[in-house]
C-alpha cells in the first residue's frame, strides 16, 4: 500500500474509533461510574462526604430488601414458566409443523412483541378487570354471578411478565432446535426410546445454548420491568424498579436511588455471569 493509502487507513481507523469511544465512554462507562459514586455519597447537606448509609438503609429496612428478594424470586418463577411454555412451542415450530408453515408462524410469533409493551399490558387490563371482557362473558354464560377482579394480584402480574418476555425465550430456542439433526431423533426412536427419554437425552442437551441465552434475557427483562408490575400488580406486589423510581422521582433521594440501582445492576450482572459460566459460553456468542 502506498504512503498516502496508509495515511488514509489510519484516518479511517480514527474516524471509526472516535464515535464509538465517545458513545461507550460518555454514555455507558461514565454514567455508571457516576451512579456508583452517587450511591456512596451522603445525601444530606449537613454531612456531605463518603458514606455507606445508602447501602445500610437497604439492609436495615425490611421493605427494601424484601422487595428486592421478591423481585428476584418472581423473576426466577417467570423465567421457569417461560421456559416450560417456550420449549414445546419452539419444538413445534422447528420440528413438527410443515416447513412452509414454520416461517409464517415465526412472523406471527414476532408480531405482538414489536407492539409497545404498554399496548399489550393495556390489552390484558381490559380483558381481565372487573368490568372486563372475560368477566362479561363469564356473567353472560352464567358461570359466575358477580364479577371477579382478576387484575392487581401476583399471579396476574407473573402472567403479564411471562407474556411480555415470551419472545426472547422462543426465538433462541427455535434457532437452536432447527440446528438439531433429525436423524438423531429418528435413531433414538428406532431404538425404542420413549418420548420422555428423547427429550431428556437428545433435545434438551442439544438446546442448552438456546435455553441459556433465553433464560438470561428473560430473567433480566423481568427484573428490570417497570410497566407490568406497576399496572398489573396489586398494592402488595411492589417491584424493585418501582422502589428506584420512588426514590428518584417521588422522594428525590438520588443517592438512595443510585444505591438501589447499583444493587439491581449487580444482581443482574451476577446472574448473567453465572449463567454464562455454568454453560461455558461467552456473551459474544449468546448475543449473535
Amino acid at each position, binding site marked *: 500500500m502506498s504512503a498516502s493509502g496508509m495515511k488514509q487507513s489510519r484516518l479511517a481507523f480514527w474516524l471509526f474509533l472516535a464515535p464509538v469511544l465517545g458513545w461507550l465512554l460518555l454514555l455507558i462507562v461514565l454514567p455508571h461510574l457516576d451512579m456508583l459514586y452517587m450511591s456512596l455519597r451522603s445525601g444530606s447537606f449537613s454531612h456531605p462526604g463518603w458514606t455507606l448509609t445508602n447501602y445500610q438503609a437497604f439492609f436495615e429496612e425490611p421493605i427494601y430488601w424484601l422487595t428486592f428478594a421478591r423481585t428476584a424470586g418472581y423473576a426466577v418463577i417467570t423465567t421457569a414458566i417461560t421456559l416450560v411454555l417456550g420449549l*414445546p412451542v419452539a419444538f413445534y415450530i422447528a420440528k413438527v409443523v410443515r416447513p412452509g408453515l414454520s416461517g409464517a408462524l415465526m412472523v406471527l410469533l414476532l408480531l405482538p412483541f414489536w407492539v409497545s409493551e404498554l399496548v399489550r399490558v393495556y390489552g390484558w387490563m381490559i380483558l381481565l378487570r372487573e*368490568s*372486563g371482557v372475560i368477566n362479561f362473558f363469564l356473567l353472560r354464560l352464567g358461570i359466575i354471578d358477580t364479577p371477579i377482579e382478576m387484575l392487581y394480584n401476583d399471579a396476574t402480574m407473573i402472567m403479564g411478565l411471562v407474556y411480555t418476555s415470551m419472545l426472547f425465550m422462543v426465538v433462541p430456542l427455535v434457532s437452536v432446535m432447527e440446528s438439531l439433526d433429525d436423524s438423531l431423533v429418528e435413531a433414538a*426412536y428406532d431404538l425404542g426410546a420413549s418420548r420422555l427419554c428423547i427429550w431428556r437425552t437428545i433435545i434438551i442437551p442439544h438446546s442448552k445454548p438456546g435455553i441459556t441465552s433465553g433464560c438470561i434475557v428473560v430473567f433480566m427483562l423481568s427484573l428490570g420491568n417497570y410497566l407490568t408490575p406497576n399496572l398489573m400488580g396489586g398494592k402488595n406486589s411492589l417491584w424493585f424498579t418501582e422502589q428506584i423510581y420512588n426514590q428518584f422521582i417521588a422522594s428525590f433521594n438520588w443517592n438512595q436511588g443510585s444505591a438501589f440501582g447499583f444493587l439491581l*445492576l449487580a444482581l443482574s450482572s451476577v446472574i448473567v455471569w453465572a449463567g454464562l459460566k455454568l454453560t461455558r459460553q461467552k456473551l459474544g456468542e449468546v448475543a449473535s
Partner: protein
Amino acid sequence: MIRSLPNGRPYIWSFNLFVLLYFVFLFAPLVVTCVLAFNNSDFPSLPWHGFSLDWFLSPGPDRVGVFHDSQNLRAIVTSVETAVCVSALSVLVGTCASFLFEQEEFRFKGALYMLMLAPLVIPGVILGISQLLAANSVGAFLEDTVGWDVEWLRPSFWLVVIGQFSFIATFVTLVVSARLRKFDRSLEEAALNLGANRFEVIRYITLPFLRPAIVGAAAVSFLMSFENFNTTLFLVGSEPTLPINLYLQVRDGSTPVINSISFLLIVGTSILVLFNVYLGRKDGER
C-alpha cells in the same frame, strides 16, 4: 415425534391444540384492544353497542377522537421525532462500530467489544437513571466552572434521544456486523489495486453491500425507540413521548381513545415488521 416419524393422531392433534391456544394467548389482548376501539361506547368494555368511528374522528366535546386529541397527537409527533433522531444516530455510530470491530485490529479490541455488548445486559431502568445522573453531573459541572446553563442536559427531548441511542446502537452494531462478516474482502483489495482510496472503497463497494442490513437496522431502531418506556421514563421532560403519555392516561383510568391509538400503533408496527421481513427474505435470496 418429529415430521419424518410416524406420529399418532392424538399426539399431533393435542400438539396443534396447544400451539393454537398459545397463539390465542398471544393475540387475545391485541385483538380485543383493536375491536373495542370501534365500539360505540364511552368505556373500553363490552357490551357491544354497534360500530362507530367516534374514537378516531369525533371532534368533541363529549368524545374526542385521536385525530382531534391535540395532547396525544403531540405525543405521537414527539415520538416520531425522537425515533428518527435515535435511528439516524444509532445507524451512524453502529455502522462505524461494525467497521471498527470487523475490519480493524487494535489493542483492547476484545475489551471494547465486551463494553459494546454491555447495554444488552443492563436493565433499561438502570440505563435511564445513570444517564440522568451523568447528565445532571455534567450540567452542574459546566454551570459551576464555565457558567454555562445547558438546557438539554436536564430531562428533555435530547436527553431521551441520548438515553435511547446508548443501547439501540448496540443492536445496530450487531445487525450490521453480521452482514459485514459475510463480505468478501477481496473485492476491497481489487478496488484498492485499481486505484480507489479507502473512502471510495467504503462509499462505492462496502456500503452498497451493507445497505439491506442498514435499512433493516434503521427500521428496528425506529421501532425500539418508538416503543421504549423504561429508559425514557427517567429522562423525559415537558414533552412526553407516546408510551409515556399513554401510561399516564392508563394509570388514571382509561377511555376508548387509548384503544384507537393502540389500533393505529398495532397496524403501523405490523406494516413496518412485515416490510422488514420482506427485506430479510430478499436479502436471503441473494
